[in-house]
């Protein structure tokens, strides 16, 4: 099929759980190197932890994929790899189009900068030319609902304000793919509704969305497909119409 925009191929992510504390100073690093050179094997071996294990998924244009799963199942790790924040240990992801990511609260905002300055910084980071941001600045401010605080450093913002502004920027940069990690849960009901409506309109214009959410109601409203991740593996996937959500609810 040629309408696939994201092709996740056997992606795995390994973390080392060191029981000894990690060398974070030159001294401890030198010591561990010296130990290794002296074949001093009394150091406990690092335990491996696979946050993601052999995940394969394909996402088509216009799809809204919701990742579900318990805390620590690897959903956010997958989004981080997709957003290029961390690299996969194995496997690869192929992407067509520009991704705009909203990961966690305060996504990529600089606390010392004002809201206005952060809009430009964030826009540039999402690959949007400044001239375009300038054009849409009023729309962004209006959508965020924090106009009054645009000249206040964002460190004074509440987490709700943070998210509203961050979402407003991401929504206006013309990305082809939106990656959203649970952030919308921070906003109030009114703002959540606004975002949902906004996402729905965008989905109709051909944008692709990947989201992590624990809000099953939100998922039922906007998602078209579900991927259930458990223990770093793809447990089940299907359309929102299938009974995956019901079974997930029962667990």
């Amino acid at each position: 099929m040629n309408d696939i925009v994201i092709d996740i191929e056997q992606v795995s992510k390994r973390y080392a759980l060191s029981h000894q504390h990690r060398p974070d100073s030159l001294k401890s690093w030198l010591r561990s190197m010296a130990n290794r050179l002296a074949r001093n094997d009394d150091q406990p071996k690092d335990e491996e932890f696979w946050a993601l294990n052999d995940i394969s998924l394909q996402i088509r244009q216009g799809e809204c994929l919701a990742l579900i799963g318990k805390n620590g199942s690897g959903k956010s790790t997958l989004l981080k790899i997709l957003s290029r924040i961390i690299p996969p240990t194995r496997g690869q992801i192929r992407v067509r189009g520009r991704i705009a990511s909203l990961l966690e609260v305060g996504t990529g905002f600089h606390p010392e900068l004002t809201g206005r300055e952060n809009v430009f910084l964030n826009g540039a980071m999402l690959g949007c030319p400044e001239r375009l941001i300038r054009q849409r600045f009023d729309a962004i401010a209006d959508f965020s609902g924090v106009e009054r605080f645009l000249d206040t450093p964002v460190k004074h913002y509440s987490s709700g304000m943070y998210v509203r502004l961050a979402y407003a920027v991401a929504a206006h940069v013309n990305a082809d793919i939106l990656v959203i990690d649970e952030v919308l849960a921070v906003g109030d009901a009114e703002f959540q509704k606004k975002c949902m409506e906004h996402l729905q309109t965008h989905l109709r214009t051909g944008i692709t969305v990947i989201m992590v959410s624990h809000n099953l109601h939100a998922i039922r409203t906007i998602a078209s497909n579900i991927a259930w991740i458990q223990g770093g593996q793809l447990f089940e996937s299907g359309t929102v119409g299938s009974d995956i959500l019901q079974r997930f609810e029962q667990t």
Partner: protein
Amino acid sequence: MTPIDTTSAVIPHSWRTIDGHAPTLPAYCRELYQYREVAYVLIRRDLIVRFRQTYFGLAWLLFKPLMLMLAMSFAFGFLAGFEKNHAAPYPLIIFCGVIPWYFFSNAVPDSMNSLLGHIHIIQKTYFPRAILPIAAVAVDAIEFGVAWLLFALGCLWFGYLPGWQIALFPLFFAQLIALCVVIGLLLSVVNVQFRDIGNLIPFLLTIGFFVTPAGYTLTRIPQHWQTLYALNPLVGIIEGMRWSLLNGMDGFPLIAVASSLTITVVMGIIAVRHFLATDADLVDLA
């Protein structure tokens, strides 16, 4: 009220691959160019912050180098008695040493701390991370560039006219900036992993001032020590700047310039390779 983008998404045909491999240099440079606006925003922000709420505002750009030049001329020229036997006015000689040194000693720690200082951004959004150390150097470089206006004023004051050699000045200027970027790329990554160097570098810079011909000239160093002394890459740059701006002052410092160029290039290769290899893993390392 919901804003709708007039351009509906047209999916590009080109695929981009995200995997664990280090990017190639050309690919990384292309990406740096794509994200150049991030650098512009960061540079503008730093400049604004630096002069916001200052009474003298931009006058600081000339005031600081003026004070440095006067204080150093007093200390080295008058107190230490180095002022004699020079073809050019001593304050101008000092300027060519102290101002590059001042830039270097600011740019190195600034770029070293750039990744760590923006770690909360790096952890939440992607852009080529080399932008941060480069932007940090750029901010100091702008201040450094403006300071040369004072040199021009100094030339007028002393009625001194630089010779044809001035044509080569931009090369030394560019090399100094390149050196700072190279050191910044290297140290900023190391600083994320080993915070020790955050303490070490300011200390080394304090020592560095005395083994750099900032307040004196290369001729003060005994002949048989000069080759060893030239291992400091700043020696070639500063003496080269003096040669280019002060009518070929003490003759062209060939050994120092050659050594400085070699060290800059070798460090450049190491720094770029190391940065490319580590860039993707930065968040996991922090």
